[in-house]
Every structure is written in C-alpha cells, then in structure tokens.
C-alpha cells in the first residue's frame, strides 16, 4: 500500500467507527445528524473538495461531483445513514480498486523485469560500478555469477551459461565462450565473463524490448476506443435521466413523493461513473501483452491482440520458420553394407567439395577424413563425383550418374535430395539430405487448428516435391511451392481476398527477407527475433525464440485476453443496467448502486489479471 492508500484506510476505519457509534448510541435527531455529518466529512472531504473545485471549472460530470451530489442529496431527503454509508462504501471500493490496479501493474512489470541496474566497468585496471547508461562501445565490463548482462557485447574472456528465460521464455540455459555475442537482459549463471560492449545501452536488446512492450499499450484496440467513447456519452445520459426521474414523476403523479423519486435519481447518479468499464479494458490488454512477453513473445500493440484473436488464416514461410533452414542427412539406406560404411564412402568421395550437399555429408560423417586414402577424383558435372576410396571405385551422385555407369537403382522412396552411391559398380545404397522440420512444427500446426484457425498455408521457394512432403507431414492445408519473393506477396494478396471480412490473415516468417509480406498481411509475425533489429522493426509481433509453437501460444493468449475484455464489458454494463432499472422502479438501494460502481470495477480488475495466470501450453 502507498502512503495515500494507508491514509485513506485510516480515514475509512475512523469514519466507520464514528458511524457505528451513531447507530448504537441513542441520541436525538440533531445529535445523530452531527455524528453522521462528522463521519461523512471525515471520509468524504476529499471527494467534496474535488467536487467543489470541479464545479468552479464547470465540470459537472466528474465522478467526485456526482458522488458528492448523491450523498449530500441523501442527507437532504433525511436519509442520513444512507448518505454516510454510500460515501464510506465508495471510498472502500476506490481503495480496493487502487490497490488492485497497483498490484496488477506491479505483477505485469515484474514479468518484464529484465532491466539491469548497473554494470561493472573496467577502468585503468580497477572495477567500477556504473549506470549501464554511462558505458560506451568497446568498453570492457565484467559480469559476475548471478548478475544480469547489462549491455549487448562480445565475450572476451571466460565461459559460462546464460539464463535467457526473461528474453525468450526458453528455459534451457545457453552456453557461451570467448568470441560469442551475448545479449543484455540474460542472466549469467555459472562463470565470470569479461565482455567488450558492442552497443550503447539505449540501443541494446534490453532497452529495445522494454521500450516496445511499454509502448505497446499505446496502440489502442477497438474495444478500448469503443469504451472510452461510450464513457463520454454514458455519464451525461445517465445524469440527465436521473434529473428527469427526480422531477417529472412527482409533478405528474399526485401520489408520488419527491423524496422517493429524488432517492431513485440519486441512485442513478451513483451508477453513472463509467470507471469500471474504462479501467478493465486497457488493463486486460496490458495483461495480455505482459503474459505474452513472459513467454518470449513481443506484441507491439493492443490492436494486434484483437486481430490475433480473430485469426482465420495462418500463412507460414517454410525455410527457417517451419524448418531449420540447414541441410542435414535425414536418411541413410544402405544395400548389403553398413550405414557407416555407406556414409564413409560418400564423405570420402566428396572430401574436396564445398557444395552444401557435400558439406552436410561430411558433417554427418563427423570423423576426420584421411585424404591420402582418396585418389583419382573426377567431377562429373551435373551428375556427381567419381573417386577411388581405399582401392574401391566409388560413384556418388544422382540417378543420371547411376544410369550413365549402368548401375541399376532398386525401388526406393525418399523426398528431398537423394544421393546414390555405388561401390565398384555395384549399387551400395542412397542417402537423403533435406532441410529438417523443427521439432515443434507439427504440434504447432495441430494446436493452431485446435484453436479454430480455418486455414493453414505454407509458402516456399523450394521444389514442389519437397514442399508438399513437408506440408503433408505437418498437416498443412494448402501449399504453394517454387515461389519467388514477389510471388509470395501475390499469394498473400490472393489469400487476403479469400479470408472473410472479420477474419484476419497472419503471416509467420523469419523476418529477414520477407518484410514486404510481413507488412502486407494483417499481422506479421517474425520468428527468431532475438538480436535481429530488422525483424523487430518489420513485424507486428516478434517471437524471440525460433519455435513455431509460440504462434499457437500467442493466439491462445489473445483469445483469452479478448474473452476477458468481452466478459468485463458485458458484466460491468449488465450489472449497471440491472441496478439502474431496479433503481428506476424504486427497488434498489444506494449500497447496491455503489456495488454496481466500484464493486464491479474491482471484480473486473481481478478478472483481467487471470490472463497472467495462463499456462503456456494451453
């Protein structure tokens, strides 16, 4: 609790005590009035003060003014008890509301607590603790065990493991050695590191991320704009109805008493403040942004949460997004020899080649290659290679090469690039090399579909066979293959036309060469954004790790956020309208009215905080 909140609590307690005395002690009417007034002024003077200042400025629709009017009105019609309790309950509600908002603000801020407080700067052989702001590029800083990395840099000395959870949501620590780059906001877990600073604080990862997340709620969602607009009309309308309600019926109906109808009017005044609505909506969005950033997902505006919740089509780029983007041996199919032997033949024959396929073969083989064992290497252009490995004539290449040397290829099944190998003109087997699908790609597509996304699409510049294989493996609905970068934009435009009016199209790419598509789609998500300024710049949402499953996570968070926003709007409006109609028929009392005002706010705030408790695998 802050100082002001404590003061307010003390006033509430004192005033309630006096009020209870007034209730119990038998006193005359004047005596009671004095006690109640004392209690009233003690707790309500702040409201009265503000109300008075606002009247002077001609602002009659201020909540303080309305509250003051409602409670004083109750005194006026002789309802002393109600006059006091209204203001006490109002203050209790306000206090709860402030505490709840502070709490939620703090818990969201804690989620984003990646900002380093200091840096250990090496200066003339001494260590100095300075503000990260004061460190310049090329300065050497020391990061001890357990400290946050204050600035982006390159490790000069030492090795350690880094906890990157705060940045990426990735729980497996990252190992770094001399020469590796490290990013601010990570935590040094095991060793001491000497680091040469490569970026100033304002430009470093941690500052950029904080800036982005903090300003995200500046971009307002439609729901938020609607509610602030609504609030501007709601209060005056309710106040005008209140005035009519207090004046017209007593004048028209002979049996109606003024005090009864004024009482009904006052109830309207109490409910006329739109605070519950106005507060719960931005808070929910802010919570959603906080929850996402905890999972290593940066959302650049509340409006994107709204759009994501209506995701209808999700378009993926293949290479680097659903697949790792590196070629690897995925299948070794030998005939009558061992897998290792087949791989050894291939790696030895390709030992001098720097072709990507040759590189992946050698990488998969893993052992050092004794080039003395290889002779008579002959490159057969467009077909493959011939070499003598340890006295065996080895051919490594495509099916054309096998045809040329009249080696028959038995039936086989493989997609990706297939390399056939023959030893002494006998078929020895084949090796498949392909881009590997990321381990969570399949589950990503499954969860995205489970969330109700209608269409999943994959765009790729890769060959038809390869693209279709990956798509069917992952369960993607549509594939477009052999696309040039320009074609991708065209495809996205076509898909945009196919999506419904309310549905949104999301494009997920690696953010490096697909900036035009990222901007053209409704929402652009860039993956593996950690350390890449270009990706952070171009996209609306940045996934810090390179896991496609985070796309499902962010959609789920958005859905939940929007659900809470809608719940809050309906709940707050519903309760208000309900009590308003009860009030109009003389069935509500002021306590219920106060509940409809501040009580609803507190409940809406608590509801908004649920988004933070969401599990990421939901």
């Amino acid at each position, binding site marked *: 609790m802050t100082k002001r909140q404590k003061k307010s609590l003390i006033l509430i307690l004192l005033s309630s005590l006096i009020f209870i005395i007034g209730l119990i002690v038998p006193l005359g009417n004047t005596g009671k009035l004095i006690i109640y007034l004392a209690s009233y002024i003690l707790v309500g003077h702040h409201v009265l003060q*503000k109300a008075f*200042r606002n009247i002077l*400025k001609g*602002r009659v629709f201020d*909540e303080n003014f309305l509250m003051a009017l409602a409670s004083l009105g109750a005194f006026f019609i002789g309802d002393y008890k109600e006059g006091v309790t209204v203001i006490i309950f109002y203050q209790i509600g306000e206090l709860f509301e*402030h505490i709840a908002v502070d709490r939620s*603000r703090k818990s*969201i801020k804690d989620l984003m607590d990646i900002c380093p407080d200091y840096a250990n700067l090496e200066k003339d052989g001494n260590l100095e603790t300075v503000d990260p702001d004061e460190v310049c590029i090329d300065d050497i800083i020391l990061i001890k065990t357990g400290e946050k990395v204050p600035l982006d840099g390159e490790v000069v000395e030492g090795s350690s493991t880094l906890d990157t959870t705060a940045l990426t949501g990735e729980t497996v620590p990252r190992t770094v050695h001399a020469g590796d780059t490290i990013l601010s906001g990570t935590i040094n877990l095991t060793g001491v590191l000497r680091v040469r600073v490569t970026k100033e604080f304002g430009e470093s990862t941690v500052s950029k991320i904080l800036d982005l997340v*903090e*300003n995200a*709620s*500046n971009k*307002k969602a439609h729901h938020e704009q609607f509610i*602030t607009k609504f*609030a*501007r009309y709601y209060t005056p309308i309710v106040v005008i109805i209140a005035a009519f309600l207090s004046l017209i019926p007593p004048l028209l109906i002979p049996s109606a008493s003024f005090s009864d109808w004024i009482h009904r009017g006052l109830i309207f005044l109490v409910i006329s*403040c*739109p*605070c519950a609505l*106005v*507060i719960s909506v*931005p*808070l929910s969005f*802010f919570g959603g942004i906080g929850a996402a950033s905890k999972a290593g997902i940066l959302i650049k505006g509340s409006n994107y949460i709204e759009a994501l919740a209506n995701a209808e089509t999700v378009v993926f780029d293949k290479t680097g997004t659903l697949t790792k983007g590196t070629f690897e041996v995925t299948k070794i199919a030998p005939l009558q020899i061992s897998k290792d032997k087949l791989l050894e033949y291939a790696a030895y024959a390709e030992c001098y080649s720097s072709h990507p396929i040759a590189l992946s073969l050698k990488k998969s083989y893993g052992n050092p290659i004794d080039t003395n064992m290889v002779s008579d290497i002959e490159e057969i252009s467009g077909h493959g290679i011939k070499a003598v490995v340890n006295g065996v004539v080895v051919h490594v290449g495509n099916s054309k090469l096998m045809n040329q040397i009249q080696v028959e290829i038995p039936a086989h099944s493989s997609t990706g690039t297939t390399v056939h190998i023959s030893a002494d003109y006998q078929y020895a087997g084949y090796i498949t090399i392909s881009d590997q699908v990321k381990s969570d790609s399949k589950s990503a597509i499954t969860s995205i579909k489970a969330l109700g996304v209608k269409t999943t699409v994959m765009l790729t510049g890769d060959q038809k066979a390869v693209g279709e294989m990956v798509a069917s493996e992952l369960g993607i609905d549509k594939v477009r293959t052999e696309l040039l970068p320009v074609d991708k934009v065209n495809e996205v435009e076509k898909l945009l036309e196919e999506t419904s009016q309310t549905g949104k199209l999301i494009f997920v790419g690696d953010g490096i060469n697909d900036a035009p598509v990222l901007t053209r789609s409704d929402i652009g998500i860039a993956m593996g954004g950690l350390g890449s300024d270009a990706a952070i710049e171009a996209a609306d949402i940045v996934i810090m790790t390179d896991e496609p499953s985070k796309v499902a996570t962010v959609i789920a968070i958005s859905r939940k956020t929007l659900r809470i926003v809608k719940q809050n709007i309906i709940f707050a409006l519903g309760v208000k309208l309900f009590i308003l109609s009860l009030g109009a028929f003389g069935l509500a009392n002021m306590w219920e009215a106060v509940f409809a005002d501040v009580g609803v706010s507190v409940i809406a705030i608590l509801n908004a905080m649920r988004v933070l408790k969401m599990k990421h695998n939901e």
Partner: protein
Amino acid sequence: MKKTFKLQDLDCANCAAKMEHAINEMEAVHSATVNFMTQKLTVDIDEEKFDSTMKDIQKTIRKVEPDCTIIM
C-alpha cells in the same frame, strides 16, 4: 517532436481517457496518448511550440485531475 513523460498520481482510467481526448484537441499537438497502465504521456508536438504547449498540457491535465503532474 515526439516525447514521453511520466505522470505522477494519475488515479483514474476515465480521467486518463479524458486527458488524452483534451490534449489531442490542442492545436500544436499532432498526437497524444495517455497510458493509464504505464502512467505515461506520449506526445508529438510542433517543435517550435514545444515549451508553451507543454505548459498548456500540464494545465489541461490539472483540470481533469488536480493532483496529477507531469514529471519533466
């Protein structure tokens, strides 16, 4: 010129919305957002009228919420 300021004692979300509306109406202001959650004011103001406009903005904020101040 775009700048961000911290707001102290911004207590009510509706007031924040009112302030934002009022500041956006001002002539030299291109755009303004008052963020209740982060308690921050972001304004884009004509460079040459910056100082005088900031004074007006402070006045406007005071009108809506008397306790609220901009931390410069």
